[in-house]
């Protein structure tokens, strides 16, 4: 029987209340809890205080606001998967969400929780990195914004400091953009062996801007920066995409584990990056 160690529990009644509770050391936010509570049961995490933010309805939204998609940190995975506006502008999020955990876990797990968990195998981090999203962090003095590409400091570590709370993610809309996410895992609900997300902005058949995110393969900030540089200004065709896949595979840092050896993971990165780019390009043109 797995039992968390002793912990105190407080329910936040407002964002301000949550921020004041979070000023205490060794405090963790709990929302869906589907990563944190298993870690507490294994004693990998032993917070002294849990702040339950499930009651903060003001953080549970998905809206289109001018030229950006805004996703509240407390939006559930199932909310994002069910959101027509998210799917219309960023099919990459629907592709990814279909593969996050399982349908029951997706009902409770939150978008913000996924990002803050900062698990190297977590899908949304790469998807948001590909889409060049921005994280909005509430602070005791107001708020600050951080590009998702600078949000993760390393495995299980983010830039969200003590007394702060991730409030929302903003994704800029770009005309002529298509996006896609491709993942290979061992079975339903499992982490990626490897996955790749692509956002392509096209002018005719020329790539204006490219965003590439990689999951579970040791890419810095979940980004395939060298492959993005290669793509910019080139023709959106299969030769370009294949080469970009090879570059992404060359520059990531997968480690051998029970999900496969390093060369297999590099092979997946090349193939999945190419596939994601092809689908993103097809969607951009559609």
């Amino acid at each position, binding site marked *: *029987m*797995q*039992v*968390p*160690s*002793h*912990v*105190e*529990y407080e*329910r936040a009644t407002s964002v301000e209340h949550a921020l004041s509770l979070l000023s205490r050391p060794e405090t963790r936010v*709990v929302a869906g*809890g*589907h990563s944190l*509570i*298993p870690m*507490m*049961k294994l004693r990998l995490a032993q917070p002294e205080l*849990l702040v*339950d933010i*499930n009651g903060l309805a003001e953080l549970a939204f998905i809206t289109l606001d001018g030229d950006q998609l805004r996703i509240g940190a407390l939006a559930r995975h199932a909310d994002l998967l069910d959101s027509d506006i998210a799917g219309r502008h960023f099919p990459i999020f629907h592709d990814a969400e279909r593969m996050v*955990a*399982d*349908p*029951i*876990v997706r*009902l*409770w797990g939150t978008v913000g929780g996924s990002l803050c968990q900062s698990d190297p195998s977590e899908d949304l981090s790469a998807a948001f990195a590909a889409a060049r999203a921005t994280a909005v962090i509430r602070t005791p003095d107001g708020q600050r914004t951080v590009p998702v590409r600078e949000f993760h400091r390393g495995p299980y570590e983010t830039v969200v400091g003590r007394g702060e709370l991730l409030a929302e993610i903003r994704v800029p809309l770009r005309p002529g953009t298509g996006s896609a996410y491709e993942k290979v895992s061992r079975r*339903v*609900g499992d982490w990626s062996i490897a996955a790749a997300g692509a956002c392509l902005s096209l002018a005719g058949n020329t790539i204006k801007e490219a965003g590439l995110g990689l999951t579970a393969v040791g890419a810095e900030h979940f980004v395939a920066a060298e492959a993005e540089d290669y793509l910019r200004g080139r023709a959106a065709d299969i030769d370009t995409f294949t080469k970009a896949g090879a570059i992404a595979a060359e520059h990531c840092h997968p480690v051998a584990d029970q999900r496969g050896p390093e060369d297999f993971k590099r092979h997946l990165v090349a193939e999945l990056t190419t596939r994601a780019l092809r689908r993103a390009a097809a969607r951009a043109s559609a």
Partner: protein
Amino acid sequence: MTVNGTEYARDVEPRLLLIHFLRDELGLTGSHWGCDTSNCGSCVVWLDTKPVKSCTLLAAMADGHAVRTVEGLERDGRLDPVQQGFIECHGLQCGFCTPGMMMTARWLLDHHPDPGEAEIREAISGQTCRCTGYENIVRSIRWAAEHRE
């Protein structure tokens, strides 16, 4: 919290998991405690309107909410069509995964009254059965869809 419509108030440790609260504090042993890692789904209950793996939720998080367990499926002594379906189509062998399967099935049918096989398999994809090979579970849920109350 209320459980199956009955109000309960208990002082519990914050670290107590909902599944243990239901089983050990309230004696509602219909919900099963399985893998303890939120993979197997035998502990699925509803929190308000949605199924949740109760081994991955603190009892304190359910404070003030309405919990529904497998004991709350039957109404006035009449089995829910999902329960009847599992009888008619032999949807269980050892029965360990069954309460979680039925709670998810009820939720699925509330939202998709006429699901196809693919939808049913997707809905229960976060739950593990080691006996049936899932065939009879899928048939049981289809039976329930065809025998709405």
